[in-house]
């Protein structure tokens, strides 16, 4: 599809906003609808759009499979790591109250980190799913 100029121009205009909207959903999830799951999928859909228009090879240059594979694990580790950090600071597993001096601030930080972990894993799994299926080509 890379020779279709309208698609290319529209996609080029669209992708930054898709990614920005994903970040908004990610970090505004405390205040409105949204959170890591939704943000991860929207972020991944930006990459999917890129891969659809410019081809999967170009997309692989932007988001290298090694990076994606690393991020699949990174998100879960960030989530569980936040839980372990709570344990090391003297609380229970996934107890965010002890992360900062003020329990409410600790909750905010914990939720932010945990949602970020969810977002990273979901986005990476979605992109790798797309790579897996779209990368097989016609046999």
């Amino acid at each position: 599809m890379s020779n279709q100029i309208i698609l290319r121009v529209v996609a080029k205009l669209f992708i930054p906003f898709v990614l920005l909207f994903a970040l908004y959903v990610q970090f505004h999830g405390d205040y409105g609808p949204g959170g890591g799951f939704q943000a991860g999928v929207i972020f991944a859909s930006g990459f999917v759009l890129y891969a659809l228009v410019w081809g999967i090879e170009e997309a692989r240059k932007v988001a290298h499979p090694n990076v994606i594979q690393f991020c699949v694990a990174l998100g879960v580790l960030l989530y569980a790591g936040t839980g372990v950090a709570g344990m090391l600071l003297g609380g229970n597993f996934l107890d965010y109250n002890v992360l900062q001096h003020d329990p409410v601030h600790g909750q905010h930080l914990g939720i932010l980190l945990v949602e970020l972990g969810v977002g990273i894993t979901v986005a990476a799994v979605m992109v790798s799913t797309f790579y897996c299926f779209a990368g097989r080509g016609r046999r």
Partner: protein
Amino acid sequence: MVEVFDIALLGFMAVLAVAIARLRNLFAIVVMSGFYSLMSASMFVILDAVDVAFTEAAVGGVATVIMLGTLLLTTKEEKKIERWSPWPLIAVVATGGLLVYGTLDMPRYGDPNAPIHKHVAPRYIEDSPNEVGVPNMVTSVLASYRGYDTLGETTVIFTAGIGLLLLLGSAFRTRPGEGGSS
């Protein structure tokens, strides 16, 4: 007024489901299931579950694209059914009937005296603003009170991704047509 939307949406979903079951063209089926996902997202909006609706809309959209990508690897048409058998229909109707029968005992939708609204929900609603201080209570329940569950869900997604990479990992790394030996 809301009931009209409920009936219209559910009717639409039923029509779509029957159409998906009857169609043989895989492209049409994938697009129709995208519509189905949009309908269920609208349904969740009517039920005031905006976070769930958001997830359904986002995942449904990406899933449709991934299914379309998968279509490239397979045929355009589903196989013709050689012999008509009543058993699948009977199984579906029986299961559906059992599920509807199961809902008869459930409390009315939105009933404030339903057991689910008497258990931990009042505690969350009363204490979440002071304890967690996050305006969106869905987030405070999801990420803080029910942090274990969400960790489990994330692990499920992680496991699905790892399984996919193990099964189709060669396509993940190599170019199309290069073969899957690396």
